[in-house]
């Protein structure tokens, strides 16, 4: 693997022990996966933030890095934490958990990581361009950056993304190379996708069906950025997919597809998939915002909730920056009037939901529906927003 003079120096300790350690890791990974050289990255997304996910070992690792003076050298955004950092007490989080979570956040802050605590960096000002190299480690953000934007990132693990952030580089392998970005299966969608839940269900089905391949979708009509956000998240959760193409919609969809194996997705598949994701139908808690709700999604919900009174709990997960706009527009007030809550910095998957007394969770997210049963030990009611609200307002 070719290294520039500067990279050699970094590897040999000219910029300190931590940089050398990170460089060593990246060079090694590059060698294992056949990289010819390093590429400079323009940003990083660090996952492994919730104390629930990384526990004591993760905290110890990050504490050590921060103490030894590690600093990121490209804009590095942070994944959701295990709780709302502002008002965690309102959500049944224990003092012990909160103390550990704050220690983790402090370690990232010391390293210069932006405390965005969101899985949607692309909605918060970290918008890469076509063909830019990144080291992102949140699977839903990875698939968004690769597919919707056409930027280039592998599915990084927490420590390798952090090492890339600290050195500003990653190995030139995998999805950084054009030849590895070609579709290898064709999915012909023979049904109209109307809601986020529909997109999410197709995403879930795709990940389950083709695992970690690169799908090319035909037959998808009008769609919003929010549709694609929830679509990719489900695909990356049920499978290991890091890149998809949609005919006429995504930037790298001008590809040879004639010889690809074709799989058809019908209205019946959609129906079957939607019912497969549910194992209860009377939610006592409804969660929206996996990935984190955009301001537009909060606005839509606000309109639907205006002047109504919920009989069930409804939590909307989003980033702090989107919430500020919701506050300014008076949406937060309307949402709270209806009995719902806006929760920042965290989500239903990485918060300690399993310690709370809810049995059936309603969601429109295929990713949430995938993780809630195992990681949070909850049953799931999967439906579109209107059906969820119907249950919540009953």
């Amino acid at each position: 693997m070719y290294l520039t003079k500067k990279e050699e120096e970094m590897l040999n300790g000219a910029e300190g022990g931590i940089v050398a350690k990170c460089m060593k890791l990246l060079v090694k990974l590059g060698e294992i996966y056949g990289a010819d050289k390093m590429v400079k990255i323009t940003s990083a997304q660090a996952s492994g933030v919730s104390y629930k996910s990384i526990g004591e070992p993760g905290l110890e690792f990050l504490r050590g890095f921060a103490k030894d003076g590690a600093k990121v050298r490209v804009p590095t955004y942070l994944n959701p934490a295990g709780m709302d950092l502002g008002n965690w007490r309102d959500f049944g989080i224990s003092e012990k958990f909160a103390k550990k979570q704050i220690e983790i956040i402090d370690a990232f802050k010391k390293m210069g990581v932006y405390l965005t605590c969101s899985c949607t960096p692309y909605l918060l000002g970290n918008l890469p361009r076509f063909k830019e190299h990144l080291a992102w480690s949140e699977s839903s953000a990875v698939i968004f950056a690769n597919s919707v934007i056409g930027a280039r990132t592998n599915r990084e693990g927490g420590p390798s993304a952090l090492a890339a952030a600290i050195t500003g580089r990653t190995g030139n392998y995998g999805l950084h190379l054009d030849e590895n970005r070609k579709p290898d299966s064709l999915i012909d969608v023979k049904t109209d996708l109307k809601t986020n839940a529909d997109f999410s269900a197709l995403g879930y089905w795709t990940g389950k069906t083709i695992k970690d391949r690169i799908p090319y979708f035909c037959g998808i009509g009008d769609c919003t950025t929010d549709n694609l956000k929830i679509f990719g998240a489900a695909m990356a959760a049920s499978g290991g997919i890091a890149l998809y193409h949609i005919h006429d919609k995504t930037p790298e969809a001008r590809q040879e597809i004639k010889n690809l194996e074709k799989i058809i997705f019908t209205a019946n598949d959609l129906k079957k998939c939607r019912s497969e994701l549910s194992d209860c139908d009377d939610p006592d808690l409804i969660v929206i915002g996996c990935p984190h709700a955009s301001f537009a999604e909060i606005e839509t919900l606000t309109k639907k909730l205006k002047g109504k009174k919920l009989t069930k709990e409804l939590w909307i997960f989003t980033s702090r920056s989107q919430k500020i706009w919701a506050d300014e527009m008076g949406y937060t007030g309307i949402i709270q009037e209806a009995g719902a809550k806006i929760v920042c910095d965290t989500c239903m998957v990485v918060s300690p939901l399993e310690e709370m007394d809810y049995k059936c969770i309603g969601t429109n997210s295929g990713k949430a529906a995938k993780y809630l049963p195992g990681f949070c030990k909850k049953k799931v009611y999967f439906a579109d927003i209107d059906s969820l609200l119907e249950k919540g307002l009953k």
Partner: protein
Amino acid sequence: MRIKARSISEGRGEGKAITLNEPFGFYGNVDSKTGIIIEKGNPLEGKSIKNRIFIFPNGKGSTVGSYVIYALKKNGAAPKAIINTETETIIATGAILAEIPCVDHPEKDIFQLIKDGDAVEVDGDAGEIIV
């Protein structure tokens, strides 16, 4: 006997072998304070990998596994070295950061040649296993 392998993480380690003939994920499956395997149904459940040469085919599961390998080392409960058939990123990341010698792609079938308790030396610099 010397077996050629690919170097993943540098350093030398020697100890008694402990072998597992199935993929292993460090997250949630090993106690990072003691090195004892806690995965339900794992053939090594209740046994410790501390100070052993830990041999298993490949990794599985969460990316947080890297953090667990690092914690094992910090707690003095890590294996002396790791030998895999194919080391994927999570194990490689953990071993490199924790400075635990690790090799993969051995040229011979190590599960045939090495039995639990055999004295094994791993040379992570040269990419060699000495039995």
